[in-house]
Structures are given as structure tokens and as C-alpha cells.
């Protein structure tokens, strides 16, 4: 092989190697972008699924506002036993969802019935707290239940 042919061949091989590297880099970028896109699509679809089918999903606007008020009324000082209270709020959510679905009346009536459901659920929560966590926690839960009732009634008045 002539010296200039050898140089050409070497140059050709270098070009090929560079082209292969470029193609591999491009392929890597495409795969990364695809995974990122799939992750984002998954997040959006899971958000929708949790919103629609989750434990407090399919909530009406009134219901969401009422439960939100119950959640925000409780201060850290009333949260002495977070597990019991979370369970109590979950049962409130479930009761309120059932009540809201059953009631096919005006917005004010729905809110008021939700408030009474909340009171019942809060009382149940207090009873549970009294049986498991002692008198102090029971008193706290009762206060919390009273606060949530007040908030819900205020919402219905407004």
C-alpha cells in the first residue's frame, strides 16, 4: 500500500469511528429523552388516577372545601397522636364522600350534612382516642372535632 493510501485509510477509519461515536451519542440522547417523556406522562396519568380514584377522589367542590377546612383548622398542638387523627380524618373523608354522593340537594344542604357527618366522625375519632391513647388525647381530639364542626358550619353560613 502506498504511503498516501495508508494515510487515507487511516483518515477514513478515524472518520468512521467519529461517525459511530456521534451516532451512539445521538441514540443515547434519544433514549434519555424518551425515558424522561415516559416519566412525565406517567406522573400526569398517575396524578389523574389518584385524583379520580384515590381515597378522597371524585370529591365535589363543596366537599373538597369542607375537608380542606377541617385539615387546616387542626394545628400542630392538636396533633398529639397523628396516626389516630389521620385515621379519623380518613373516615371523615369517606363519610363525607358518601354523604355528598347520597345528598342530591342544594349546596347549602350538602355542606350542612357534611358538617354533621364530620361531627359524628370526630366523635368516633374521640372515642377511639379515649380507648387507646388516654384521657389527654381524647380531650384534644374532642377539641379538634369541635373546631372542625365550627368551621364546617361557618362554611355553610357563608
Amino acid at each position, binding site marked *: 500500500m502506498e504511503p498516501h493510501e495508508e494515510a487515507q485509510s487511516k483518515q477514513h477509519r478515524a472518520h468512521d469511528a467519529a461517525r459511530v461515536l456521534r451516532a451512539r451519542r445521538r441514540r443515547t440522547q434519544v433514549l434519555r429523552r424518551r425515558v424522561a417523556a415516559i416519566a412525565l406522562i406517567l*406522573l400526569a396519568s398517575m396524578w389523574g388516577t389518584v*385524583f379520580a380514584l384515590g381515597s378522597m377522589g371524585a370529591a365535589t*367542590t363543596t366537599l373538597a372545601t369542607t375537608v380542606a377546612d377541617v385539615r*387546616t383548622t387542626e394545628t400542630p398542638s392538636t396533633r398529639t397522636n397523628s396516626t389516630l387523627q389521620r385515621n379519623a380524618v380518613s373516615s371523615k373523608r369517606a363519610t363525607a364522600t358518601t354523604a355528598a354522593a347520597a345528598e342530591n340537594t342544594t349546596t347549602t344542604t350538602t355542606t350542612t350534612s357534611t358538617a354533621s357527618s364530620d361531627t359524628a366522625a370526630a366523635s368516633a375519632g374521640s372515642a377511639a382516642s379515649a380507648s387507646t391513647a388516654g384521657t389527654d388525647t381524647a380531650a384534644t381530639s374532642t377539641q379538634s372535632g369541635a373546631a372542625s364542626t365550627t368551621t364546617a358550619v361557618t362554611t355553610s353560613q357563608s
Partner: protein
Amino acid sequence: MTILATATGSHVFWITSRAAGLVALILASASVGVGVSMGGRMFRGRGPELKVIHEALSIATLAAIALHALALLGDSYFHPTLADLAIPFASTYREPYMALGIIAGWGLLLFGLSFYARKRIGLARWKVIHRFTALAWLLGVIHTLGEGSDAGRTWFLVIVATVVAPTLVLVIARLARRPRHKLPAGGAAGRTAFS
């Protein structure tokens, strides 16, 4: 958009966290599955592509885990501190599943990112460390089933089973294959499962 915002109210962070947790589980399962397939050389000739997918899935998993935890900071009911979300057993909420989730998160972060320090650690040692990612993933599955707000619901269990079962089969198959690859004494370290 306004209707959605009004309907979700203050639950937007709570829903986001749960959705991100589910996404993290799906991505982690896929990542572990791909990793085990690579280690077991189940798809010959697809090594470089699988490596890129495995890496991208792992990073996406870590991002989803970060979103899962950080979104909780905005939840007005739970209102946890950063310590509650980062230190196992710091919070009293649904223990021990909360702690298992935190340990799983840290495990996936450390064992996953150890890839970038493999030259410093040494390839054989890194392979031993990296296989514990599967254990962290398993802790994440237990956290999901034990603590998930929708854990008893059919749609949730269907999603979890769909993503976890194939990966679990791959992990078990990989572990079952392990004894057949007995290496000579001294060469076994780091060439065991998932390597």
C-alpha cells in the same frame, strides 16, 4: 384548570406526593428489572442500550422520590418537617412503613449513585454494593403496600402487581441462577448476583 384547582384545594400536594410515589415505584421496578436483565445477560447484544435506559430510569426514579417527599412539605394537614421525611423513625406517622420508605429512598440514592464512583470504589466492590439496590426497591414495595393511602384499592393493587411481579420474577430468577456460576476461590467477590 380553575375547576381542578378548586376541587383539589389544599390536597394538591397530597395528591402530587401520592402520584409521585406511584411513579417512583413504577420507574424503580423498571430500572431494577433492566439492571437484573443486564447483569444476567438476558438480552444479548442490547447491552449499551440497556445501560442507557437503566441509567435514565434510575435518575428518573430518584427525581420521582424527591418529588414524593418534597411535595409532602406543602401538605397543610400532615405538615411534616424535613427531618420527619429524611430521618427514619423521626415521625410517628404510620411506623414502621414510613421509616422503611425513608430507608428505601436513601438506599436507592446511595446504591444507585454509587455507579458514578465505581472507579474510585473498585469495580468488584461496586458490584457488590450495587446489588443492594434490589433490596432497597423491595423495602420501597413494602412501604407502598403498608403505607399507601390507596393500598387496599383494586386499581392500586393492579398497578403495583403489574410492575412489581415481573421484576420480582427476574430478581428471583437471577438469584436462583447464582449457584451455577461458581467461580474459583478469590475471584468470586463482586461477581455474584446482579453483577
